[in-house]
């Protein structure tokens, strides 16, 4: 899996599905958001789309 260098969303592709920015394979920490409307953690990171995110990307 790769992580988007801007929105930190995980994707197997070379470019992020949502924002189109390049991705990196060097990431750590995992955050899975299933319900962004209910989740306080998603609000803290301004995540509005469900999916897998990393916590840090290089």
């Amino acid at each position: 899996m790769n992580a988007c260098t801007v929105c930190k969303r995980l994707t197997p592709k070379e470019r992020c599905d949502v924002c189109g920015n390049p991705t990196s394979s060097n990431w750590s920490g995992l955050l899975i958001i299933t319900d962004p409307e209910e989740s306080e953690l998603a609000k803290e990171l301004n995540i509005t789309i469900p999916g897998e995110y990393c916590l840090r990307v290089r």
Partner: protein
Amino acid sequence: MEDTNNSIYALKTSVGQERNVARLLSRKAQVSGIGISAILVPESLKGYILVESSTKIDLRNPDLKVQHLRGVVEGKHGITFEEAKRFLKPEPIISSIQKGSIVELISGPFKGERAKVVRIDESREEVVLELIEAAVPIPVTVKADQIRIIQKEAD
């Protein structure tokens, strides 16, 4: 806190299976609607994951039967959002390394060797080391996550 009734639970998993457990749990949460809204797997917590849920996590619930999931950490007050938010912004390892520190290499061809930090490149997250036990001091450049600090600063 705030207007939510969500709580954060710490779940114990087998070490090394944290991400797998999180992915399986999220899939189960979407199918059965057990109230899980987010799952956090911090790199610094080995063998544990944090789950944000609107309902109490009870492992006797058959919807929560996941391989490598060992149990729920029971506590008086549970985990607060402030504590969980600390894990959302992990501090880069490089900020804790100082010039002159004694470190041990934990991976790569010099694994197990001790070295002294000569230079730090914060933007690339690299450090230049000089191996202590080598007869001739040769600078070695490694990524910051390949070293472990033994002594903060050399005397």
